[in-house]
């Protein structure tokens, strides 16, 4: 037992994937905590390490990937211990991923799959688990649960499948739910239904929620706290209001500027020139430097560390933005990228 006052505490986590062409540093020195009942959004683009982070937190990094350093503590116990992780995963921490079909077996009925989770983790019999499964389906808004329990996943639409996955995730009364792009594969009206469901369950059950997404719109409504990931590092963290309205890291600001909004018509999007770095060759400088309009020589020679600043926020930048209103970035030329 290591002392930790948090539900989940990640300390200096390093995850690497060795490949023939070099070692990919997917997660580089990430530290953060999640407390009971908190809703945390993790935002990043492809390759930012957000999904690897989620898998690491559940002890699900598979070979050739490995955790090269750091510690993950769940209520003081190390999740790097596979036996501990197996007992906690699905019971105290649950996960909802992007593709609901990938989390279900196509050849077993929904009822069988849901009861299996419960009989494995909880001290209850099959009959009781089956009744509970019906109640859970009802709770996540699936009509006629009795009949639905006897059906196979393919008989459900994408939105309904995701509801089943959520019901299964909640079946052992977890304390934390990790949702990795839970609505990315869904249509927008279905997305709205699922997001509302996740938010209301989180509040009703007092769950800690870690919502991982590339979509700034999704976290704006659902999360109180945010972390922005870039090239395997947290570049900025704070409350949703702080990051959306007074971003201090140029990447956060650029991400906001390049996202079109339904409610505001911009003449031109502020594209971020270039593309994310090759994760086999990073470190020794700020990874955002080649794309940053504010980069100086210091940014190219010294890697900034995530430093706490005012009111619980932190950023890793040598030249942070003013921090008052969302500053105007020079419109980037449609560059080579």
């Amino acid at each position: 037992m290591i002392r930790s006052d948090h539900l989940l505490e990640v300390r200096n986590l390093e995850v690497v994937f060795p490949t023939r062409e070099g070692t990919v540093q997917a997660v580089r020195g990430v530290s953060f905590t999640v407390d009971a009942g908190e809703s945390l959004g993790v935002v990043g683009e492809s390759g930012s390490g957000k999904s690897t982070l989620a898998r690491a937190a559940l002890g699900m990094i598979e070979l050739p990937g490995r955790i090269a350093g750091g510690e993950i503590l769940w209520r003081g116990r190390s999740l790097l211990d596979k036996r501990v992780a197996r007992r906690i995963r699905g019971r105290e921490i649950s996960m909802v991923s992007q593709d609901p079909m990938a989390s279900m077996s196509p050849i077993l009925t929904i009822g069988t799959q849901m009861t299996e989770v419960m009989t494995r983790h909880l001290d209850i019999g099959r009959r009781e688990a089956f009744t509970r499964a019906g109640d859970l389906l009802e709770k996540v808004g699936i009509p006629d649960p009795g009949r639905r329990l006897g059906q196979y996943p393919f008989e459900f639409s994408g939105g309904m499948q995701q509801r089943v996955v959520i019901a299964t995730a909640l079946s052992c009364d977890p304390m934390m739910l990790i949702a990795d792009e839970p609505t990315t594969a869904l249509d927008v009206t279905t997305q709205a239904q699922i997001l509302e469901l996740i938010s209301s369950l989180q509040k009703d059950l007092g769950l800690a929620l870690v919502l991982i997404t590339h979509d700034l719109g999704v976290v704006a409504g659902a999360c109180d706290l945010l972390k922005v990931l870039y090239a395997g590092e947290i570049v900025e963290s704070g409350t949703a209001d702080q990051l959306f309205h007074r971003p201090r890291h140029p990447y956060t600001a650029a991400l906001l500027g390049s996202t079109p909004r339904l409610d505001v018509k911009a003449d031109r999007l502020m594209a971020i020139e270039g593309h994310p770095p090759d994760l086999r060759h990073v470190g020794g400088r700020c990874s955002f430097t080649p794309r940053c309009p504010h980069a100086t020589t210091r940014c190219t020679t010294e890697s900034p560390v995530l430093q706490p600043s005012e009111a619980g926020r932190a950023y890793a930048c040598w030249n942070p933005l003013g921090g008052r209103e969302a500053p105007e970035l020079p419109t980037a030329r449609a560059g080579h990228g």
Partner: protein
Amino acid sequence: MGDALLEVQGLTVTYDVGREGFWGQRQTRLTAVDDVSFSIDRGETFGLVGESGSGKTTTGRAILGKVPIASGRVKFAGRDITEVEGRERRAIRRNMQLIPQNPYGSLNPRMRVREIISEPLVVHRLFKNAKGASERVVELLELTGMNPDDMHKYPHAFSGGQRQRIVIARALALNPDLIIADEPVSALDVSIQAQVVNLLQDLQKRLRLTYIFIAHDLAVIRHISHRIGIMYAGKLVEVAKGEDVYRIPIHPYTEALLSSVPIPDPRVERARAVSVIAGEPPDPIHPPMGCRFHTRCPLAEPRCREAAPPLEAKGPEHEAACWVR
């Protein structure tokens, strides 16, 4: 309406999807696009938006002649392309090009960029081979913000955003008037998506292109489109200028769709009343009678179950298909 480049009238596309009945005596038909009409002016961007299965992609493919049309007309620059064949058809087809969604699946991994971009030029016999078209390829690469040296490389050397630029260069090779872009930025990360959207807008200004921009992302559609058409279950339910669709939506489905889109701003999100619509789009093989949306519509009346409302003018340059509004 000014100078209409493309007119679509009563476009209907059906797919045969198997047989029904005890002996399989009845052909099962799926109506992917049902009686869709709209027109697009030269130099305009027409956004076509809808959820999966709404028929937006099939509409684009039918205009390009990639799927057979069951009924209806498609007029390009005044000529009905459903009637012409052979040389004339090819000449029209040269003027309309497709930008597909997936920049990974749409480039042949065994061809160099020069061959890829020059392929339409060679197919239409403007050049004998890829080598002969080098000058034009360089021009196209520069136009799309790529490096001329890239023409000797293979697609695997490029990122998603760069591949989409190559796809755009190929679509522009024949100097088309109309570009049908089917989810051109959906597979890209938001920072790269912004680059490609900006590029498409710049190209439109420079080359006076006309776009049909098909997407499911309403924020992107709103950003790029002059006029927007909203599709639901094979039907065009509303057509209006971009700002009007967002400011004064008429069709209840449009309203529901707009309200479902999360806004990247926590203050707006907290203040916003999200009216989540229950249910899912109908089964396309057995769609409901009457208005296709009546099964989910909060305003549905008895007549909505009986007959499908026509798309009709409800305001200046604003059409909608709804009995109630």
